[in-house]
């Protein structure tokens, strides 16, 4: 079936709302407007105002309310328009959702699902373009996932709802319009394991979310240079599936991390360090990474593109790594 990422998420939302009366969607403009990125269009008409709940511009209150509703036996899906706005509810996510289980000695679980858009590429300038997934991936008590394929977009929501703990789903804004084929029967996803999206023997390209497609494209270009790259899609940013990453690096002996965050304190930094800790002697070249330039994302298109990881930069970093031998 030909579909888009946007429609795949909507299908997942619809299915979740149909299957479980406790599920409801809440957030800014999710109802009448149909979602800032048109993801929830039509759901209000289908499920009504109680379950497709428009909120005021009060991130902290409605995310906190989602946490309370989860404690009260509901299964809220809370949409925060973008990760940039989620900084207004960072307190509720980090200090409350992530800690309640622990502080209560295991008495309370918080089965909330938070959806937020992330990433740059649409000339939305600095306050609508950041990639702050790694901030959330830093926090014990949260599960952080980043679906990058149609299957994952449709399948991960159900798995997130089944998880008794708070789950944050990051949807890269560049993905919504992408089209592709999606099987009717959708049981191929997993939020615990990273996925090997392309098998290869020469170098591991480790990425997630919006950068998967750029990385796959880079891998195809590398073939022309005689380089057979393996592409790992992390899928889950917390916890990280170290095993899949390490197995790949031990096989290829070289690795480049691709991450749309700024490199300081990024997931690329974390993964690189884990590889260094556990597979240092398996490496044939220094670890490398392609991240966003350390600048607030600029508005002009050419500067924005220059700041972001691109296919060419991934290709050249991979070639550099291939040229080295330690």
């Amino acid at each position: 079936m030909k579909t888009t990422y946007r429609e795949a998420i909507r299908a997942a939302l619809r299915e979740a709302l149909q299957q479980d009366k406790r599920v409801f969607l809440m957030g800014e403009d999710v109802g009448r407007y149909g979602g800032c990125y048109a993801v929830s269009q039509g759901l209000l008409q289908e499920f009504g105002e109680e379950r497709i709940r428009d909120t005021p511009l009060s991130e902290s209150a409605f995310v906190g309310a989602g946490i309370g509703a989860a404690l009260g036996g509901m299964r809220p899906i809370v949409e925060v328009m973008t990760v940039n706005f989620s900084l207004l509810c960072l307190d509720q996510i980090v200090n409350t959702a992530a800690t309640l289980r622990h502080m209560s000695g295991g008495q309370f679980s918080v089965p909330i699902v938070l959806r937020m858009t992330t990433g740059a590429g649409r000339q939305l300038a600095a306050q609508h373009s950041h990639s702050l997934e790694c901030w959330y991936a830093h926090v014990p008590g949260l599960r952080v996932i980043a679906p990058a394929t149609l299957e994952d977009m449709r399948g991960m929501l159900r798995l997130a709802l089944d998880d008794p703990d708070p789950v944050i789903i990051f949807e890269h804004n560049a993905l919504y319009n992408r089209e592709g084929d999606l099987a009717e029967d959708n049981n191929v996803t997993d939020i615990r394991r990273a996925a090997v999206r392309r098998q290869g023997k020469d170098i591991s390209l480790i990425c997630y979310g919006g950068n998967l497609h750029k990385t796959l494209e880079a891998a195809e270009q590398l073939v022309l240079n005689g380089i057979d790259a393996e592409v790992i899609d992390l899928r889950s940013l917390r916890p990280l599936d170290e095993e899949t990453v390490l197995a790949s690096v031990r096989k290829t002996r070289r690795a480049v991390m691709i991450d749309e965050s700024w490199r300081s304190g990024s997931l690329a930094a974390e993964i690189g360090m884990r590889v260094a800790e556990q597979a240092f002697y398996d490496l044939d070249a220094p670890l490398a990474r392609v991240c966003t330039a350390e600048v607030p994302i600029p508005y002009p298109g050419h500067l924005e593109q220059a700041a972001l990881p691109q296919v060419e930069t991934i290709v050249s970093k991979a070639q550099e790594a291939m040229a080295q031998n330690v």
Partner: protein
Amino acid sequence: MEQKPSQVSREQGLRWLKDMSRIRRMEEKCAELYGQEKIRGFLHLYIGEEAVAAGAMSELGEDDAVVATYREHGHALMRGISMNAIMAEMYGKLEGCSHGRGGSMHLFDAATRFYGGNAIVSGGLPLSIGLALADKMQNRKRVTACFFGEGAVAEGEFHESLNLAALWQLPVLFVCENNLYAMGTALARSESVTDIHLKAESYGIFSAAVDGMDVISVNTAVCDAVKRIRKKSAPAFLEMRTYRFRAHSMFDPELYRNKEEVEQWKQLCPVATLTARLRAQQVIGEEDIAAIENAVAEEIQTAIDFAEAGHWEPVEDLMKDIYTNRG
């Protein structure tokens, strides 16, 4: 402010006296135990404010929920969490109501629907909105009582939450414990409008100011508010005007207020004034007071023994209760 009813029954009077004494004496002991380094971390005492928790909590049913702040020992005790479990939690022992992981500021209890123990000022307000929303969506006639200090009023979450409660007509009882100081900042130094209940009114929420030093006034106001919430399924807001006799926490040298002011408020001590009143009305005698003191002292000693005999969680369990199904 509410009118004080003239006569209190013996039974009710004894109950309140005992409840407030339990909080008062337990906390006095906690301060001692803190000095002995048995209790560590931050310890925020409720002494002076007992009338609020004692007068309010009895109007809530078993199914109702309570959300509180880091100054919550009194609320936890009045909600029915055993003194043993509270004391063991302050010690950090496995037998504590949060299995030792929370400490003084994070008392939790699923059995009594006690949702903290929240140490982020105003952090509990959005949570109470969600608990009430879940009740409303599931057609349950429950009330969520949310206790917070007047310092929370300055936070955005206070306003966001009041707006949502009114907009969605949620059954939340907001109880603002206005003790006049947010740590060391006096209300008048942080708020342009110091009549806090007026802020709730501006959101279209039924609200009242209550003499928070008088357990009868507190109880009457809460009783009315809870009835109203259950009947209308709409929020209500009570500003309890109260005072803490002790410092903000054990680290506070109290440089921000003078002793005369504290002494003046101490004249309004909720335990002493109720005792005097019950005596004057000849509802209780000296032997009743002695009996309460003895029973409370015994309960406290039992709680300390319980906490002392409690267990330290093995370090191997360090990674427990981060996620539900993992570790």
